[in-house]
């Protein structure tokens, strides 16, 4: 399912004294099967943009086309439910959406709302629980007895069980410890590849953006300022900081090295492997010359 966003605008509380322009003139296209990172300073409109992808918010101008479904300003959309099944959203702190008596019921809740029969939903729930790294023995337990990190996983499983074609992630790892963070991000990546999902990740971690995404959308003050591959975008360091954005550790390190040693590397170094390789090459060059 390709996604095309055209001249999208969103105003909160239209026609009240509290009206607020949160998005304007947003244009972007996301290809089926790609992994897109949306980055931007707090309040730049990332969450607002995401909520348009399954019709939780409606454009006040412009349009979004998701496959055959087109969401347009001033037009009532009828079949939002089928869209919501196809576009799954993992919100920030998704554990806040848990409410059922047992973990099994909570994971089945989404699929069953979309008409999946109970037995099938339960089978899916078991599968998903395993996928997020929790033992099946937990299924009959109350989700409220779990640790924060485990609750997060259950909530994620609840979204994955709906088998969406597009997976939207709004800072899914905030507040987790380093291992938990890596495990969950790796899990999403694996799923992305295996199930051929379109994945859209909002993150404040430039490392994650650089590491997982093949496309990036940079938001600033309510609109898209740049799009491109991480390598293209991080090549332009000054632009990124003018949007109030951090750089990945490797790029920051690259910058210090370049300044201190008075050299320039031919391209942005996005991973530690690339960095180490470049530095080793530099060292070997020095010793042999």
């Amino acid at each position: 399912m390709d996604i095309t966003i055209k001249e999208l605008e969103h105003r909160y509380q239209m026609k009240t004294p509290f009206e607020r322009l949160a998005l304007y003139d947003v244009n972007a296209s996301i290809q089926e099967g790609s992994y897109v990172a949306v980055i931007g300073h707090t309040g730049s409109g990332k969450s607002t943009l995401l909520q348009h992808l399954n019709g939780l918010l409606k454009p006040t101008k412009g349009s979004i086309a998701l496959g055959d479904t087109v969401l347009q300003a001033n037009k009532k959309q009828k079949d939002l439910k089928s869209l919501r099944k196809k576009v799954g959203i993992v919100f920030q702190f998704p554990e806040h959406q848990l409410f059922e008596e047992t973990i099994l019921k909570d994971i089945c809740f989404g699929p069953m709302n979309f008409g999946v029969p109970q037995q099938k939903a339960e089978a899916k729930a078991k599968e998903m629980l395993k996928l997020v790294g929790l033992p099946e023995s937990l299924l009959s337990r109350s989700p409220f007895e779990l640790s924060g990190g485990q609750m997060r996983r259950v909530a994620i499983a609840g979204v994955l069980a709906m088998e969406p074609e597009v997976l939207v992630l709004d800072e899914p790892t905030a507040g987790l410890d380093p291992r938990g963070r890596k495990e969950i991000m790796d899990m999403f990546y694996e799923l992305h590849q295996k199930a051929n999902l379109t994945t859209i990740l909002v993150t404040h971690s430039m490392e994650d953006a650089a590491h997982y995404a093949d496309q990036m959308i940079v938001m600033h003050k309510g609109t898209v300022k740049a799009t491109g591959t991480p390598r293209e975008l991080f090549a332009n360091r000054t632009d990124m900081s003018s949007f109030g954005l951090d750089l990945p550790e490797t790029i920051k390190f690259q910058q210090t090295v370049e300044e201190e040693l008075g050299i320039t590397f031919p391209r942005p170094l996005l991973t530690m492997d690339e960095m180490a390789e470049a530095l080793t090459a530099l060292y070997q060059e020095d010793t042999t010359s």
Partner: protein
Amino acid sequence: MAGKQLSTKTVVAIGIGAAVFVILGRFVSIPTGIPNTQIETSYAFLALMAVLFGPVAGALIGFIGHLIKDATTFGPWWSWIIVSGVVGLLIGFISNRLKVEEGDFGWKKITLFNAVQAGAQALGWFVIAPVLDIVIYAEPANKVFVQGIVAGISNIITVGVLGTIIIAAYAKTRSKSGSLSKETS
């Protein structure tokens, strides 16, 4: 409440409970399909809080919550605010009998809860509210009694259905380890 000091936790729970009451009262209602008629969720919440935290908290959440709710719309309507407090108070008296914190809300408890909530609300809306309306605002008697009976019946039904559902749902989340029932310091 006289004599016994309120713990920090109770004070905070009442404050936040009142905030939730205001939000539910103003923004979260269930449309019935009949124009201009909605099912209020706030009294179901009040019942839950009263059942969890007892009469003092129930009374104060009802009173403060309703007061703020009115004050942020058109100004306080004291007679009904007082009734909200009374309803919270009366339902709170069965808190110890129900022990929802322990995670069980079976048929026997449901029956008791509904008998008490219906009684408390009948007294509140059918009697206290109209009488106070007459005393404070000198309103005509037949009008306020009609008003009270309409409000009372709809609230009794709402709390009966929705209150029972959410208390049961909440009890299930507490099935084992209830940390709120424990008081620190």
